[in-house]
């Protein structure tokens, strides 16, 4: 989706961490998990996933390792302990935020203030 990059701004890091929560994945698998997990809404160009993963790796939230698959070099990423902590904290923050926004946006009888 053309606009999904903009739409994801500020949330991409936690979503990438979440795609690694179930176990290690390589770049293409992370991108597929993001697309499938969002019902197709977050479909980023695969090539732009890699720099985001590198940024998370530099921050110590994920760790990458090279292996050989079908004669190609493949880099697979897993969550670090710091990454798991960050994911847990961001999940909690998001739940609180989403609950507050939903409460405000849902139509309903507003209590009268006087």
């Amino acid at each position, binding site marked *: 989706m053309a606009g999904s990059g903009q739409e994801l701004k500020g949330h991409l890091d936690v979503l990438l961490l979440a795609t690694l929560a179930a176990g290690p994945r*390589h*770049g*293409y698998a992370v*991108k597929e998990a993001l697309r499938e997990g969002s019902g197709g809404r977050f479909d980023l*160009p*695969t*090539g*732009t*996933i*890699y*720099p*985001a993963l*590198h*940024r998370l790796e*530099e921050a110590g939230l994920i760790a990458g390792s090279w292996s050989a*698959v079908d*004669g*190609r*070099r*493949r*880099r697979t990423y897993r969550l670090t302990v710091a990454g798991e902590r960050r994911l847990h904290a961001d999940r909690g923050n998001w739940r609180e935020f989403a609950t507050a926004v939903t409460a405000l946006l849902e139509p309903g009888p507003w209590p009268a203030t006087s």
Partner: protein
Amino acid sequence: MAGHELIDGHLAALARRLPAGAVGELADGLTETWEHHLGAGLPPAAAARAAIAEFGAPEQIVAAFVAAAPGRRTARMLLATGPLVGACWGATLLAAGARAWPAPAPAAALVVAAVLLAVVAALVVAATSRRSYRRTRLGAAGGCALIALDATMLTAVLLLAPGPAWPMLLAVPASLARIGLTARALPAALTR
């Protein structure tokens, strides 16, 4: 590589503009995307075109790498903190009466000023780069030069200052902190 010529061409375009390690990873991702489309029953050329469309244009991918480049981030950090460290040193030199320091101080000051200008120019180029990964590498070069400048200033103050001046209490820790922060950021900026 046992890929399609369109895939190889796309990777060659990326290899001209991105570091080798990144291109190896992109090659794996693009080839897997191509195989995915082949497996879905597309003929090789159509599968290659679909894979490239899904992967993104070189400009788009390079821009994403540039935006996340460690050299660019290092340059931005150094430009943001530079004026503060510079002001501390300006105050120190004024308070310590640097004008009266023995020669070679005036000539050395000119050299330091010239290097500082070059460093700032390099950092600005790295920090504002949007399409060139090569330019972000100037962030690492600028960082190395800034460590040398900080070390020069610390040595000069230790050797030449006639006595302690209070702004040194700010300038010396500021320079030491900057050396530490830059040294931490440099490995990624130099190797990515």
